[in-house]
């Protein structure tokens, strides 16, 4: 059920995010979410976009290193403590969360979260048992404007 994420490697220098976003914008690709991980020397930009494969193609042509991979996406209630509850579920199942970030969505009353874990299928089965609303690629796609 997992959804496709775009990751881009960039040296930690002025203007690199702008250059990457320019390539994506010029390819007519819409952006729903972005998260930045950075170290002293490089950053990894992770994004949920309308066309991840198209973005990789455009970025590679422009000389950037990028890739797509599957991540778990869930919708949680827009209320205090719901993210905490999600983390408790993961912790109880001994699932190590590499990173997470949120997606802009237009569904009222809920928040979309991206979770990076080692085993997507296992994590989704655990979350399902706990009644967490797991997002499909289609539902995420639907949140992009046509």
């Amino acid at each position, binding site marked *: 059920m997992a959804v496709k994420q775009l990751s881009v490697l960039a040296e930690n220098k002025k203007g690199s995010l702008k250059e990457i976003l320019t390539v994506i914008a010029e390819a007519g690709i819409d952006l729903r979410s972005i998260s930045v991980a950075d170290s002293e020397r*490089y950053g990894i930009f992770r994004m949920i976009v309308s066309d991840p494969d198209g973005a990789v193609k455009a970025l590679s042509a422009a000389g950037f290193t990028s890739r797509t991979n599957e991540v778990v996406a869930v919708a949680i209630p827009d209320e205090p403590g719901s993210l905490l509850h999600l983390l408790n579920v993961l912790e109880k199942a001994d699932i190590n969360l590499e990173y997470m970030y949120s997606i802009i969505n237009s569904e009222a009353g809920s928040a979309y979260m991206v979770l990076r874990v080692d085993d997507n299928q296992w994590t989704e089965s655990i979350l399902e048992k706990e009644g967490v609303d797991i997002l499909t690629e289609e539902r995420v796609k639907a949140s992009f404007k046509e």
Partner: protein
Amino acid sequence: MEQYYQREIETMEPSELKKLQSEKLKKQVRHVYEHNAYYRRLMDEKGVKPEDIQGVEDLCKLPFLSKQDLKDAYPTGMLSVPMTDCVRIHSTSGTTGKRVIAFYTQHDIDLWDECCARAIVATGGNEDSIVQVCYGYGLFTGGMGLHGGAGKVGALTLPMSSGNTERQIQFMMDLGASILCCTPSYAAYIGESLKEQGYMPEDIPLKAGIFGAEPWTEEMRQDIEKTLGIKAYDIYGLTEISGPGVAFECSEQTGMHINEDHFIAEIINPETGEVLPEGEKGELVFTCLDKEAFPMMRYRTRDICVLHRGKCSCGRTFLKMAKPMGRSDDMMIIRGVNVFPSQIETVLLKEGYTSNYQIIVDRVNNTDTFDVYVEFLPEDFEDTMKSIAAKEKKLQDALKTMLGISPKVHLVEPKSIARSEGKAVRVIDRRKLV
């Protein structure tokens, strides 16, 4: 009063010394010609017979040996006695191709130990000294060389080997070590650690240090001398010729006396092979006069250096060599270990990387820093920081296995390492050692 381990040899009249060298050379050429097929072939190709060598002045007729010859003759092609006559080997670090296995008979070990004994006595060492050897023991010649020398002198030897600074300091202070033998950067490190623990130079029992196996500057010497409250002496050597003690410094501290009764030194033009007159800068070449098992003849060290003969205030008559000023090949000495860029390239290709890399060497607080920048393969890129760190660690481990020292590995964006039109700048050495 200057002390000598073998006064009559170390202060021999230059004309007598030349006579001694000539006699030994004649004998040695015959030994090598008869027992070493590899060098015999080189001599035959050059049309030189043992009888053509009647003295030191004929040395220039002999063919050179280079690292490439040692590579071609690996592992035993340079052995000039039956292997059963040997008692030990030592080896340089490096790839199989670059690695040299040097063999020693008991006689070879004795003369090497003697050379190190001269170095120790020149620093004021005697049978009452306590010599702390923290060069590495094992295949590396540093530890066993100074250890053997201290044994000849009759000093008490502390065979510490390298590392474990806390224990080094404990033994030094508790036993009252008087002579420290290690790389200059480790001496500086020990000095800093002692300082941090609140010891003043006058609290430290050391009187002298014998430091070598890596390049160091005059500033570094003064720094170490001040921190440890000692006199710091330089020592030179290489596994191919025997190990440390090929040349050693005396109280004058203006260059290292070459043990000329055992080794003839020449300076040549590295491009043409032409022998240069005394005082000119060029590549240092050694001929072993007494070694049996692994007798290098006109071995090109690749060290660029200058020789001087003159009266030394210490009374020794042996030729003096200046600190090597560089290399005629691309070898670097990092933290006392010989490193060739080609070794790094071999590991990168084996680990699946491209050969686009850059090595940056620097010296911070008297310790060498060693950074290797390698370009990512686009297909290796993953979305987590952890995966990048794991790849860097894996490459670092592979490099450590190859080199014997651990560089800091940095994976960088593909195509981010500058590509120049001509020769790529693979090595940036920021240490100002000359």
